[in-house]
């Protein structure tokens, strides 16, 4: 399973390296999302407060584009059928595609974080750096696992371009909420500052626990369910 996962992840990352999908399309899309939010809100005090939420919203929107791309390369010339005929371990395919997706998301998030700091005049408290890193890693794992699972589910469906966001967005809501709360703790901001100002770093860790559980549950579910999903694709 792990050998297959390594093979599939290397293949997907190689395809990304050649196609530059993240750098040429997804990153500009995510950056534009941040800029448009800044234009729409048009107040520095508000954008600084809601920066964590907007960061994860832009990441979630980008996830949809990345997942669609990850499965488009499998379906465009029948590679998904060939993977099935070749008897390649579905759990390995799932983990490999999740790993590749997570790696691309991490790069995207690192650049988006810079964008948030520049556009939204946000800053991370020094004590919150560890919280930001762990939150980003766990949320990314969760997003990648869910994205790959639902990408596989939608791969063979008609109208999959519109079906995928409808299926995916409600499911990733817990990641959006948990990661945003943890980032708020690390940033020292709160969307509703009037309701509760002065958020502590320690307020973020319970959300990190929730993100870990989410990633573990969907990781395990994907390993078990991806085979039957591929058969139906």
């Amino acid at each position, binding site marked *: 399973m792990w050998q*297959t996962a390594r*093979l599939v992840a290397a*293949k997907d990352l*190689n*395809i990304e390296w*050649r*196609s530059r999908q993240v750098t040429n399309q997804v990153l500009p899309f995510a950056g534009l999302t941040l800029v448009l939010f800044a234009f729409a809100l048009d107040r520095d005090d508000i954008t600084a407060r809601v920066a964590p939420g907007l960061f994860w919203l832009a990441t979630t929107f980008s996830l949809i584009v990345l997942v669609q791309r990850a499965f488009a*390369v499998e379906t*465009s*010339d*029948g*590679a998904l*059928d*060939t*993977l*099935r*005929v*070749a*008897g*390649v371990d579905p759990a390995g395919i799932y983990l490999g595609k999740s790993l590749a997706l997570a790696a691309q998301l991490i790069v995207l998030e690192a650049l988006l974080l810079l964008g948030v700091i520049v556009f939204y005049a946000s800053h991370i408290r020094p004590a919150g750096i560890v919280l930001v890193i762990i939150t980003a890693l766990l949320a990314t794992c969760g997003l990648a696992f869910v994205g790959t699972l639902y990408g596989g589910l939608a791969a063979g469906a008609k109208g999959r371009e519109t079906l995928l966001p409808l299926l995916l967005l409600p499911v990733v809501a817990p990641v959006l909420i948990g990661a945003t709360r943890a980032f708020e703790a690390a940033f020292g901001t709160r969307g509703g500052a009037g309701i509760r100002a002065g958020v502590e770093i320690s307020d973020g860790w319970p959300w990190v626990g929730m993100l870990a559980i989410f990633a573990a549950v969907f990781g395990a579910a994907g390993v078990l369910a991806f085979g039957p999903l591929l058969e139906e694709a």
Partner: protein
Amino acid sequence: MRARPIRPRTAVCAVASGTVVGRMVSPDNAEPTRSAGPVVSLRDVVAVLGRFPALAGASLDVEPGEVLLLKGPNGAGKTTLLRLCAGLVPLARGEAEVLGHNMRTERDAIRRHVGLLGHQNGLYADLSVRENVRFWARTAGASAEEIDAALAQLGLDGRLASVAAGRLSAGQRRRTALACLIARRARLWLLDEPHAGLDADGRDLLDDVIRRAVRSGATVLVASHELDRAQALATRMVTVAGGLVYTEQNANPSGAQPGTVN
């Protein structure tokens, strides 16, 4: 003369119209005889695509080392039959064994040894020819030498090896897909219109590849409309029409109605 659909049999060996159509695999001597029995054994197989019965009670036996030509009109069920043998189309009814494994219960065991070249090539457009062949070869645990040999056999070992698959011509993509098939060391080759898109040299090369595969122990099922070329290659021929398989060569089963259940 109307061709006759192959009927299910219970005998150990049967001959129809002078053609050996196979023998049943005894259930109590499973593993040792798996390679000795028919490579493909279908009995009254029904496969439904949507509401349409693409295979409507087809029966067929294919012996090891055969090159079996499936001919028949468009929509007759040839592609569905090949995809069923590859485990891509579910069996609605009937019994099917491929490489001695039951299609319903041992599909994963079958798939490791089956190679399908369908209407699509299964290539990644952004990867080079060599990277595509290497990826598919490594899913089957093939060595670097086997990958190089497969590329060389299809004439893809020169400058073409580093060209992205998306920039190749249709014929070159077909050759790349064949190289992937060779590198995967499949024991059962399922080729759906393999000559499509190939020039004269490419077709000769393909025929040579198929003959070499058979010499090395593979069994080949070819669905083709290019009968002259395919007949020269085939050791046996059956007609697929209306979801049924007919044995006699050069017969015209035009009376068969799609969906007719055997």
